[in-house]
């Protein structure tokens, strides 16, 4: 493990922007493009929003834990954990356009799957949810390829 950042915050919407900006700024330590940082910010936003909206049903008493780890020069792992109501059917929750809330688009997990290389969801009803995302950035320095 080369470096990591770990922080916890109450489940209020004001912290979604903070969480994605923080992880995005941390990701800038890697050799990644601005576009890739935007994708990292998006998936963090989706996972943290899911914890607040679905895990804690928009109640502010919950806690969300975020940990981002740089495993080497190219790989970043992000973990988002809550102690909310959990997910009964993970397979269904990950289907595109599925949402337990009809006013939402159900794209959160689709974004996570599409913009990250690995997605792991561990959850049980009443046991909270743990999401692990992994992204491998391409080597951009041509000398490194030589």
């Amino acid at each position, binding site marked *: 493990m080369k470096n990591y950042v770990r922080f916890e915050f109450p489940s209020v*919407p004001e912290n979604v922007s903070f969480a994605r900006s923080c992880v995005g700024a941390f990701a800038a330590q890697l050799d990644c493009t601005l576009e890739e940082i935007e994708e990292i910010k998006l998936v963090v936003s989706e996972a943290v929003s899911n914890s607040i909206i679905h895990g804690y049903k928009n109640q502010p008493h919950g806690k969300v834990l975020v940990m981002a780890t740089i495993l080497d020069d190219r790989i970043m792992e992000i973990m988002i954990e809550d102690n909310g109501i959990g997910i009964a059917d993970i397979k269904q929750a990950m289907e595109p356009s599925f949402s337990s809330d009809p*006013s939402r688009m159900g794209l959160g997990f689709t974004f996570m799957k599409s913009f990250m290389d690995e997605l792991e969801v561990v959850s049980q009803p009443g046991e909270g949810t743990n999401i692990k995302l992994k992204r491998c950035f391409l080597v951009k320095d041509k000398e490194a390829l030589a």
Partner: protein
Amino acid sequence: MELELKQIRNTLLVRVKGEMDMLVAEKLRKEIDRRLETKQITNLVINLDKVTFIDSSGLGVIIGRYKKISSLNGKMFIVGASPSVRKILMFSGINKLISMYNNEQDIISI
């Protein structure tokens, strides 16, 4: 987020500035719906020129307003999305439902 709403005849022009996430989604939805429900509006134009970030909460507001204006037999347009915002809009498929233009002048000319 800053919000500017302007009615021009039967068109509601909404200029959004900042980040469109779950923090601002509810406010944005309420502000637009209040006008759609009380004014004679048949066209809704959302200007995303100054939107720096959008996630599925922001997309949800857009698609929800599209459904609403469509149910009133109206039309909706998106203008000015930056490349990063446009990428997310296209990824979601919203561009297949709502016409996208580069700026407000493009809509006035159609």
